[in-house]
């Protein structure tokens, strides 16, 4: 492997790493708050990509201003949810209605677009999926997890697997077997950094990762809601005594994780494409990233994601003995099992303490 090739593989690694990092973040959010490993996390990513595809289906003009507008919209909606949260009356009802409404807006727009052949710029089309997928995560928690009777760990795992199957199946019905891509955000395909050729979409993926991670960090450390979420992750019973509703927090965690998944799914689709079956493998990788980072720390998940992404790219690059592109999917799984085993004592202790 020459120096130029090495740089090229590092770029691939950064691209994959950002993707895995965000999926891992989704795992961490849900796991920290609810102790559930959400097997549908990969499906959220797939849905994000597919929704963005659905929205830009007949469109070929990507523009940057729409992305900025989309981010402003996101801020506005965040503020709205925050406002609703600070009211005391029946927050569950209100916020569920809000999220459902928000989720249905893109759907209405889409239907309108179908009938009036409206064209949706790719910027908006890659932001709206976040809401749609958040709504899916929200519904999944309300209908699947919260209604479970006498929930056990094994039972909840299987419920999330069932949800994953349902989401995957519906995606398969709607979008078929084909691999879908959305147009690139910038017209220029590649730029040169040092000796490597960098696909412009990789920059977007990296930027999304950084922005989401920073926003999440700010959310968790600066807002009351985020702090409640963290409190719940540390000690649900104690948080409950302080007037925080753990179920509500779990609901928010699911919606948040789904939104994070949807975001990365929408941004990566122009580069890597998406089929209805992609979610499974991305979910597994996200889990590996989360396990590298110790499951409970968002920053750990990000670092784990980058380690995994770059490591996997280098395995493809090395091409020696069993370290070649055939085995690029095998090694992460082996590492996953090894990490789990090395940490099994700590994990068992955590599980016992809840």
């Amino acid at each position: 492997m020459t120096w130029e090739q090495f740089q090229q593989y590092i770029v691939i690694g950064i691209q994959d790493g950002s993707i895995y990092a965000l999926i891992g973040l989704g795992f961490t959010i849900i796991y920290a708050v609810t102790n559930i490993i959400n097997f549908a996390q990969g499906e959220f990513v797939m849905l994000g990509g597919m929704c963005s595809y659905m929205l830009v289906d007949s469109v070929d003009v990507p523009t940057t201003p729409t992305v900025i507008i989309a981010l402003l919209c996101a801020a506005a909606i965040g503020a709205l949810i925050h406002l609703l949260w600070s009211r005391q009356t029946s927050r569950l009802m209100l916020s569920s209605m809000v999220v459902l409404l928000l989720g249905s807006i893109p759907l209405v727009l889409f239907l309108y677009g179908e009938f009036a052949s409206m064209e949706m710029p790719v910027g908006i089309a890659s932001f709206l999926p976040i809401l749609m997928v958040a709504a899916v995560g929200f519904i999944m928690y309300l209908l699947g997890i919260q209604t479970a009777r006498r929930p056990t760990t094994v039972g909840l795992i299987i419920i999330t697997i069932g949800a994953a199957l349902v989401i995957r199946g519906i995606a398969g019905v709607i979008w078929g077997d084909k691999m879908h891509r959305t147009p690139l955000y910038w017209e220029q395909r590649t730029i040169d950094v040092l000796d490597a050729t960098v696909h412009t979409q990789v920059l977007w993926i990296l930027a999304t990762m950084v922005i989401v991670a920073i926003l999440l960090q700010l959310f968790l450390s600066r807002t009351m809601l985020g702090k409640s979420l963290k409190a719940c992750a540390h000690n649900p019973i104690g948080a409950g005594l302080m007037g925080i509703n753990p179920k509500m927090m779990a609901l928010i965690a699911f919606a948040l994780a789904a939104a994070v998944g949807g975001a990365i799914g929408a941004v990566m689709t122009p580069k890597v494409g998406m089929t209805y079956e992609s979610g499974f493998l991305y979910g597994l990788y996200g889990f590996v990233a989360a396990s590298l980072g110790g499951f409970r720390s968002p920053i750990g998940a990000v670092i784990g994601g980058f380690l995994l992404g770059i490591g996997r790219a280098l395995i493809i690059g090395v091409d020696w003995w069993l370290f070649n592109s055939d085995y690029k999917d095998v090694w992460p799984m082996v590492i996953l099992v090894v990490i789990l085993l090395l940490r099994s004592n700590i994990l068992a202790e955590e599980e016992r303490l809840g």
Partner: protein
Amino acid sequence: MSRKILSQWRLLLIPVVITFMALVPFDWFLGQYKYLGTVIGLSTIVTVGLCLFMGYTGQVSLGQAAFYGIGMYFSAVLSSVHGLNPWLAMLIAACVTGLVALLLGIILRLKGNYLAMATLAVGFVVWKIAVIDDMGCTGGPDGIRGIPYLSIGSFEFDSQFKRYYLVWGFCLAILLISQSIVNSRIGRALRAVHGSEEAAESLGINVFRFKLKIFVVSAVYASIAGSLFAHHQLHASPGYFEPIDSVYLVIMAVIGGLASIWGAIFGAGAVEILRNEILIHYDKWNMVILGLILMVILILMPEGLFVALKTGYQQEGVFFIPRRIWRLARSLYSGIKGFHRRKIAGSLQGEPD
């Protein structure tokens, strides 16, 4: 009262079911479903192992199809490429799978979520290795052909009709063995482990060893089913044990009732009939429907459909289903009327009125 009826029915039921199963492959009865029947038998064998591991021991495995695959490939390679006697190949395959399970047994130190992920990863790795085919013995994605039929002396299991009985013979034997495992000291120990590992440990049960034993047993079951499949289909390929198949096996175990040996037939039958006869006309909807079934069963009756039906019948007699639906609807209605504090999701189980 209803219990008595149940025992009377059971006396009648067992011969009826056995005759029914025995008559299925005849052409004047349900001859066209011979193949389906055989597949159900194979799935039942794997599901019984999964029930032992998941239902009785309280563990979780999302990689059971891997053992099925290992058994299938060892049988296929040994009997077709190396020309070994199929029965010997099957025995070796079972031993190797048991050994693999024994070595993998170290992952049983994990629990719950982590065990699920670790077994999923193992299932994925085994499948992927079969696809990659680095050693040049698994035939890659195309798999292996030219596998001989099983035979006893000069009697060859060369027709669908004969193989149906072969598979169900194995299936019955495995069901009976599992039944006796469950009713023995081991079975009681397993249930203690399920209840509380600490409590079981304090009673002098070596928890890890028992989990390992049952893991190996379930792996060997899966391997036997895989070997039978190889000699039945005369083809072995990675397509028969994809990671998603492990999930389907879990669905079978869940429908049959996790802690129920005989429910496995019910679960395997339900899922295979759904997949092969009904949902095949609906393309991708099958995933949606199976996923929904899985979710609904685990949400409303975590002990499994078969077991829920059985206990419901024992408690309330023949018309328990309409009664419970009525009660569920009523509780849902009152739940909608007073959204806040009341319990929204009523249950098929129902509280006493």
